[in-house]
Every structure is written in C-alpha cells, then in structure tokens.
C-alpha cells in the first residue's frame, strides 16, 4: 500500500508531490491522460508566477514542476481516476485502465473544468467555431472576426492572444465592469483590434456547419442584436471538478470541496484537498501551489500521527 496518492497534476498537485517526495512519502501522482499539467498547459505567457522575472510559458512551468517532483522520487502516471473509495484507513482508487491503487492518504487536487454557456447549439458547434482554448484554436482565425465571452483575466488573455491572428476581436461581457486585473484590462482596452460589448449576454449561436454569428441580448434595454463572427471563445470561468468524489466528500455551497479552516482536511480522515477544487475565490497558479504545500504537510503529519498511535485510527475503518 502507498503512503500517498495525489489526484491531479496542476500547480497544487505537483507542489504537494514535491513536498511529499522530499518527506520520503514516495507519492504517486495520477496526472490525467489528456489534461495533465492542468490549466496552465493551455496558456501562453505566465507573468505572475514569482521567480520568473521575464515570465515563463505555462507548459514549460508545468514541466519544471513535474521534473522537480520526480527528482525527489514522485511517480507520475498518465491516467484518469475512474472511481474512488475514500472511507476507512485504506483508500482505493480505480484508474482508467482498470488498475486499483491503494493508499493510506489521498490529496484531491483535481482542479476545475471550463464552464459552458448552456445555450442551444453550443455543443453542436463545439469544435466548429465554438472553442474554450484560444491558444489551441486561435491560429484558424487568421484575418477573421471572432468574439470572446467573459470579463475575467482568462477572457482578456484569450482576446489579446487572438489579436495575433484575427482582424477583430469582440469581448462580450454581461455587465459593464470587467473582473480582470488592471494590467490585463489595460492591455485589452489599448488594443485597437479589440472592441468591448458590455451589458450583453450570448443567447444564440448561428451557423449550420461552422459558426457564422452570435445573437446577443442587451441586459439593460433587452434589445437583441447579431454579431457576425467566425469563432466564439468561451471564457466565463470554471467549476470545481468534483464528480469523482461526489457523495464521499462534503462540498460547500459554491461546489468546492469543504476543508477545515486554513488546513486541507476534508470530512474524511486521511483525505486532503488542495488547489482550485477547494478555492472559489482566488484560483491563481501560486495560490494553488501554496495550497498543495499545505495538503502535503497535513498528509505528512497525519501519517506520522497514525504511525505513532495506530489504534486510534483503525477504529474508524
């Protein structure tokens, strides 16, 4: 049986792995088969992670974190967690390939998943003009007009990135106030290719085989209007990825995994949580990393306590 298994390989998962590996816990990181490295794999320049005065590319930062964890003995598998049994002293995780992993402790750092608009035709045209990843798909919109939905940092980043290819980028936001940081806002507002459409929600996506336009409704006047665009990039935030632990770990009203105070302790002994999956507010690479560190230290202290007084911990099994 393993001492520790970490679900997730973003900044939280790998920071937990670095600390746990250095504490000789030989953690196993279940990195996901296609989304390993977390959200930063789909970004370009990361300019707000301390220690990189010139900035660093998201995927490169994640490769560094992985190497750093592996240097101290962390093991990484590229698979997904299909199901978990988290109660009792032995945690069981079933992977996508059917393999079952047993561990004394688990850190859940499964991050968050992109939110959808939830309107008709969004799924049908996904991959045909509707996208959640400007860095993946932006290059297909050379000299075209596209729209980004959202008002946060990721929307500003997507819009700014898309100006490399597109002739014009609309940013559609449901209020008249952006949530993005001042630096990101300034950059987008000063970009001649970007035009803001405030107080508007996207109600329709038009196009038979490919996106041809979007239907907007003004949130104040209720007026409807159409924008001709070839691409719609959705950046309206994300939701904590909790499906695999549903019914076992207690969630908050916001849908994140509930942890005790400033710790990473969940409602189950030996199960800890870190990163975006516990964080409804900040969700930065550096806060996730800090939270991963907390989880590794909590797991380490728990394992030490169990080793010291095993009888106290086996009763709950």
């Amino acid at each position, binding site marked *: 049986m393993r001492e520790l298994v970490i679900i997730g390989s973003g900044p939280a998962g790998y920071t937990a792995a670095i600390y746990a590996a250095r504490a000789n816990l030989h953690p196993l990181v279940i990195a996901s088969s*296609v989304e*390993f490295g977390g959200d930063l794999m789909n970004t370009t320049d990361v300019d707000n992670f301390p220690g990189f005065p010139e900035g660093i590319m998201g995927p490169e930062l994640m490769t560094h974190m992985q190497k750093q964890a592996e240097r101290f003995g962390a093991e990484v598998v590229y698979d997904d967690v299909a199901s978990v049994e988290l109660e009792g002293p032995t945690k069981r995780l079933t992977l996508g390939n059917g393999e079952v992993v047993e561990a004394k402790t688990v850190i859940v750092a499964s991050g968050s998943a992109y939110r959808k608009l939830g309107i008709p035709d969004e799924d049908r045209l996904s991959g045909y003009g509707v996208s959640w990843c400007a860095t993946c798909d932006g290059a297909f919109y050379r000299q075209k007009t596209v729209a980004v939905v959202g008002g946060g940092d990721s929307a500003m980043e997507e819009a700014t990135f898309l100006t490399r290819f597109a002739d014009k980028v609309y940013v559609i936001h449901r209020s008249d106030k952006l949530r993005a940081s001042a630096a990101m806002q300034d950059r987008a507002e000063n970009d001649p290719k970007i035009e803001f459409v405030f107080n508007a929600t996207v109600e329709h996506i038009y196009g038979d085989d490919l996106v041809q336009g979007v239907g907007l409704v003004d949130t104040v006047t209720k007026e409807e209007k159409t924008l001709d665009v070839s691409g719609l990039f959705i950046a309206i935030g994300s939701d904590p990825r909790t499906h695999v632990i549903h019914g076992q770990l207690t969630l908050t009203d916001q849908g994140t995994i509930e942890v005790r105070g400033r710790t990473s302790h969940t409602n189950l002994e030996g199960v800890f949580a870190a990163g975006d999956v516990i964080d409804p507010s900040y969700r930065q690479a550096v806060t996730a990393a800090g939270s991963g560190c907390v989880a590794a230290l909590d797991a380490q202290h728990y394992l030490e306590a169990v080793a010291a007084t095993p009888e106290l911990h086996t009763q709950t099994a």
Partner: protein
Amino acid sequence: MSAARDVTDASFATDVLASEKTIMVDFWAEWCGPCRAVSPILDQIATEHADKLDVVKLNVDDNPETAMKYQVTSIPTMKVFRGGEVVKTVIGAKPKPALESELAEFLA
C-alpha cells in the same frame, strides 16, 4: 514524437483518400498542448488495432489547404476516412477509453 506517419497536402490524395484500409488522420500542430497529450494515446490505439485502422498525422501549420478543406477549426481533430469519405470526426483530446468507445465501430 510519434510513431504515426506524416501526411501532407501533396500526399493526402494518395495516402488518405486512396487508402484501401480505414485510415484516421490526426490534425495537429506543434504549439497545441492537447495535441501532444493525445498523440501517445493515438499511437497506442494504432499499435493495438494495426490490422483494422491506420493512423496518420497532418500538421495543420505546414498543410493549411487540407485543414481548411475539411473545416478544421479546433485541434486536435481526428477524422476517420473510408473510401475517400469522412465517416467519423472526433474533436479534442480525450482519454483512451473515451476515444476507443467513439471509434469502436472501426476497431472491432
């Protein structure tokens, strides 16, 4: 990076459209993280089902004509061709079990 053979705008007609075997084209690019993620999974599927399905790769940066012709606007996009026609399109990097179930009819 990958075991799969490359096809190009120039070779597409002979390599893919004229292929007698069912063939899947992986539309990808260097700068696309999810493409790199799914590439080894496609290699595994190709190896395990070598008798049923060929898997080839098309770099969309170097071969924009074919990518445009097949209206690829998101990568990775995987298109299965039979007798020169597209019979299945899968968009986005997915875990191996999900890809296998989407491609089930071509792997059985």
